[in-house]
């Protein structure tokens, strides 16, 4: 009973996170300027990270936690590099 309830709740929250990733992807595809696209990418990888955490709760494996940690680390580096690129036109000076 509680397993079914939890399965439904987890699926619902995965749907909500998927919708938020869709919003971020729309902003990334349609953003009027480059900084809007970078902001959309930032929100998109955050949604993907949280979605992986919910998959980890669902299956009870720690594999998904490690994947989420990797996304968090690399997404930060990606957004910083893109912001530097918008500022100066090159990533490493």
């Amino acid at each position, binding site marked *: *009973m*509680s*397993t*079914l*309830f*939890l*399965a*439904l*709740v*987890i*699926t*619902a*929250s*995965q749907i*909500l*996170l998927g*919708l*938020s*990733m869709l*919003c*971020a992807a*729309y*902003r990334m595809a349609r953003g009027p*300027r*480059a*900084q*809007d696209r*970078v*902001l*959309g990418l*930032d*929100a998109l990888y*955050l*949604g993907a*990270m*949280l979605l992986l*955490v*919910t998959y*980890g*709760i*669902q*299956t*009870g494996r*720690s594999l998904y*936690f490690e994947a*989420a*940690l990797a996304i*968090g*680390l690399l997404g*930060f580096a990606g*957004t*910083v590099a*893109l*912001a*530097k690129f*918008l*500022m100066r036109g090159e990533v490493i000076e």
Partner: protein
Amino acid sequence: MIQGPDLPTWAAVIVGLLLLTGAATTLIGTLGLLQLKSFYERVHAPTLGTTLGAALILAASMVSFSVLQSRPVIHEILIGVFVTLTTPVTLMLLARAAIYRDRSEGASRVPTDGPRRTPRA
């Protein structure tokens, strides 16, 4: 086929509440990303997901794994600390880049500097 962890009822209620509120908060943040008008307003919206949404979902994960393995499992704190520390840095860099781009093009609606204090001689 949907599946879920085999938790006792009290833990299932806690985990479910934390998960739903966290996911809804993240969705509200990205809806703001769609809805707000200018970039300088939009840059605030996704932080709702990076702070409260991430914290609630990671707390749900911590409760679930701790009850499943009947020992405290808190390694999700790593993700939480990392995301909370890096989001302000990235978004401030991005906002500065946007201001720089807008000013160099002479756009009209650019945020101005605050009142500048002149250094005393």
